Each structure stands twice: as C-alpha cells, then as structure tokens.
C-alpha cells in the first residue's frame, strides 16, 4: 500500500510538471508553487501558493485549473481537490474549481469569453525569448557571423542543445514548423525578416527575454520571502544575465560536475 501511495505521489508530481506558469514559461513544480500534495488511495488534494496575494487572478486561475485537469486525467484519481492559498481571489477561485465552474462561471461579469488569447500571447512571448537565446548562442559561437545573416538560419543549423530543444517545444506550442529547413528568425505567424530588419527584431526579442527572465527571478525571490523555506522547492534557473564567458563552460568541467 505504501508503495502504491509513493507511486501515486510520483504520478501527481509528473502531472503537475505539465502545468506551466504562462508568464514565466516554467512548470509550477520548478517554481515552488506547489505547497502540499496529499494522496489517499483514490483521492488527491493539492494546495498551490503564489509569490503575492495580488498576482494576476487570470494567471492564478489558469494554473489552478490546469492543475486540476492534469490530476483528473490520472486513471486512479477519482476525487481531485485543488486549492489556491492566500490569494486575494482564493475564495472565488477555489469555489469555481470545486464546482468545475470554468473560467466564465468562476469570474462572472469580469470574464468575457475565455483565456485562450491570453495563453497565446504568452506562448508567443515564450517563443520569442527561446528564439533569441538560440540565435545569441549562435552569434557567440560564430564571432564572424553578421547579425543580418541570421535571417536565413534554419533549425538544422542550430546545435542540438537545451536551448534548441526548448525552441522546438515553443514553436510546436504556437503551431510553427519544426522541420529542418524551417527558418529560426520568424515572428509568431512564422513570417521571416529581411536581413536589414533582423538587428532591430533581435534587439526587441532580447528585451522580451530579459523581461521574462527578470520576472522569473523576482517571483522566485518573493515566494521565498513570503514562504520561508520554499526556495528549497525551486529548480535552478539561469539568471539570463551571465557574462558570455560564464555560459561557455569548458567540456572538462562539465564532466567533472555532471
């Protein structure tokens, strides 16, 4: 029985790993937003926590309802309770989640149709940031390359690393091709840029990436201030401000510290 419950705890963790904070483009598990998990045979209760009581209620609702959906999909989970703690809209959101009232049913007159557009806005930002990370890496690796030449770089020309894998996932999420000959430097609709327009577009993409990285770290810090000890639940995320030298860790060092 104990082994079954341990497995089910692992199931819950895996399910929650798929729940992404759209604004920070990271799983709620890595952010430390999961406060507690209780499993009792066929029932699971999860409490979520956020960095402030005034975090956007729409994002808060999205994460909480995504969590409930992900847990309800577990074959053994007949009873699923997800509650958001200490938020200014906790009562409203928790009532809505308990009744499976949906977004409009939860927020009433404050909601218009759905949160699909909001989600899409942030998936696009996540793609922009991922694209900038890959292309900046490429520029660093090939010092003679001009910025304008990025216009024609294809997915096949990127090295197979974590950044490229992340870019592929972000492209899939907004319906962009992930075929080898697909251009990397594209807008959210998949349209490319003329060489002359690349520097400004990349510069703008960089400000998007800085904004997301900056918020991710501020939110982590606030969570740790609000819930002392919660920093232990947070996965490492690069600052995005590291100097060029630091990001190129020599291969030998990687082997010593896997």
């Amino acid at each position: 029985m104990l082994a079954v419950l341990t497995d089910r705890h692992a199931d819950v963790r895996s399910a929650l790993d798929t729940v992404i904070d759209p604004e920070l483009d990271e799983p709620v598990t890595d952010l430390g937003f999961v406060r507690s998990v209780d499993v009792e045979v066929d029932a699971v209760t999860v409490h979520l926590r956020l960095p402030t009581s005034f975090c956007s209620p729409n994002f808060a609702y999205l994460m909480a309802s995504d969590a409930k959906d992900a847990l309800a999909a577990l074959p053994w989970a007949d009873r699923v309770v997800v509650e958001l703690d200490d938020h200014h809209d906790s009562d409203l959101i928790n009532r809505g989640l308990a009744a499976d009232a949906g977004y409009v049913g939860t927020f009433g007159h404050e909601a218009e149709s759905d949160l699909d557009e909001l989600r899409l806005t942030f998936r696009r930002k996540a793609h922009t940031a991922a694209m900038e990370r890959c292309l900046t890496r490429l520029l660093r690796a090939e010092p003679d390359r001009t910025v304008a030449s990025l216009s024609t770089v294809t997915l096949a020309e990127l090295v197979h690393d974590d950044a490229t894998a992340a870019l592929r996932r972000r492209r899939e999420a907004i319906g962009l091709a992930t075929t080898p000959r697909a251009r990397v430097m594209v807008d959210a609709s998949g349209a490319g840029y003329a060489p002359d327009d690349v520097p400004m577009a990349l510069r703008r993409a960089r400000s998007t990436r800085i904004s997301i990285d900056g918020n991710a770290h501020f939110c982590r810090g606030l969570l740790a201030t609000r819930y002392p000890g919660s920093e232990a639940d947070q996965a490492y995320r690069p600052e995005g401000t590291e100097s060029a030298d630091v990001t190129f860790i020599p291969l030998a060092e990687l082997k010593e510290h896997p």
Partner: protein
Amino acid sequence: MYTKDGESYFIVDAHIALWDARPENQKNVHGKQFIDCFYDYHANLSPDAEKWTYEEYLYQGGERLVKDLFEDGYVDHAIFQPAHLGEFYETGFGQTEEAWALTQAHPGKLTYNHHFDPRNGEAGLEQLYLDAQRFDLKGVKLYTAEWHGESRGYKLTDPWAYRYFEACRELGITNIHIHKGPTIRPLDRDAFDVADVDHVATDFTDLNFVVEHVGLPRLEDFCWIATQEPNVHGGLAVAMPFIHTRPRYFAQIIGELLYWIGEDRIQFSSDYALWTPRWLVEAFVDFQIPEDMTEYAPITTEQKKKILGLNAARMYDIDVPAELRLPEADETETGPRQPEAADMAAV
C-alpha cells in the same frame, strides 16, 4: 543634493507616498494583503541594514518622511504620487490631508500630485476641477487596477478616461503618472499590458505619460511603446532596488531603457516608503554597466545626473541651481537611441 568625487547631483524623488496601512485603517483583508505584499517587496529587495520592521512599515508620518528624504536621503525635491485604494482602507492608502499639509509646510521641497478615477463620472470630474485648484496640480497618479464597487480596474482608453484627460489638458495637469496593476476587467487579457498608454499618448500629445515601474513586469512592451511616442516616459519606482539584489539585471533594465527611450525620459524614485532614497542614490552614483555586457554602452555621469533629478525637474519646472543643470541630449525623438552600441553577440 548628493556630491561624490567632485560631481554634484540634484536629486528629485519622483514617486513617494505618505501612507497609512495600520490595522485600524484597514477596511478588510485586502488592506492587509496589500501592505503585506509591499512589505515582501521591501524585505526581498532591501539590503539588511535598510530593512524596516513591519510596524514601522505600516505608517511613517510626515516627520519621518522629511528626515528620510531631505535630511538623510540627499533629496532636493520629492513628488507625492498617492494611491487611493478606497476599497481597502478607511481613509484611503495615501493620506491626502497629511501629505498636503506637509507640502505646504515645506515650500519648494514637495509637490503634491493627486489621483482621479474615471469611474466616478461627472461627480469625479467636478472634484478634479476643485482638486486642481486646491493643490495647484501639475500631475496626477493613476492606478488602473484600483477596485471600485464591482469593478476591479479600468483602461486609459475608456471613454470616461478621455473626458478626464481633456479636463487635465484644460487645467494644465500635464503629467500623468500611470501605475499598471494586476486586476483589471476583463480578465481575458494581460492586465499589465501597456497598450492603452500607446493610444492615449498618441491622442494627447500635449500630455506627458510617465509609466511607473518602467512597465515592469512588461518592460519589453513599455520600451517598444515608449520608443515610438515622444511623450512617454519611464519612472524607476520598484526597478531601483534591483541595483542591490540583482545588479546585472538592473544593468539590463537601464541598458534597455537608454537604448530604447534615451537619457532624457527616465526618472529616479525610491518609491518611498517602499524603500528609502539614501542607499539608492549612493548605489546609483556608484553604478556602472558591467564591462562584459558589451551590448550596452557605459552609463555616463551626465546620464546619471539627468535620471537622478534633472529629467523630473524639467517636467515639473523645479528650479535647479545653474551649476547643476545640463542640456538635453541631441537624440532622436523616436526609435532606438544607441543603435551603434548594440553589440548583438553579447548578452
């Protein structure tokens, strides 16, 4: 004034408050949640030596404010930017009467900006005319996520907001400070979106729009709008203390701002009493863009002087001693300011 290494800086703290968040003034749990959120900001981003106790944080009073700003904080002039939060606090969060009395008691040191809420309709418009006369208003602070009955926010493009901006134009209230907050209707969209600033800035080119917190958490959207609208400015409230906790991130913020909107449109503030100005002024004068961040040009002493005070002084016609003044930079009104400094390969 702050002097270091033979350079003197005229300091304008462009965003301060005199608040009362003590339990007896809290209307409901949201009053507590709001000040708790501020206190976490304070605790998270302050150096240990600058941290206040929670009790100190709830209310400071005028005497302490004057000491923190003008005696200890090098500030030459400070501007009240009050948030009303009438649904959370009995007498509001920002203390109008106390702040106004303090402004009158210290002539030339303080400017009192008030607030309005377009959801108050005609009655609020009447009040704005009275307030403009009483406080000799040059500016207002707008908090778009203010709760108001059933409503939890408004957009600057709402028709009533336009009526109020037309009144501002008529009354000579030229400086509109905007704080984007997170709870706005409809919830379907990004509440921090600054797109409505873009619209009003285009429609009211004779008004200045100062976006507080430089649009954080949407720095990129702010930069993109501000680079295209010559009357959009950035206020550094909340961004400043990153200079201590995350200096490289702070460097990115300043680097992006100097690139997209230039040195004449960025305003320093401590966001008192979220933080105090002394350590922020000292840290900013000592600050430099790290050498390896070659995508940004180094920040100059002249740029620091403008950001720390001269830009806000110009907007508010604050008298600056002749020896501390600087000319405006000969920069483009729109578009990136330092394209030549963009070393794309560096991060």
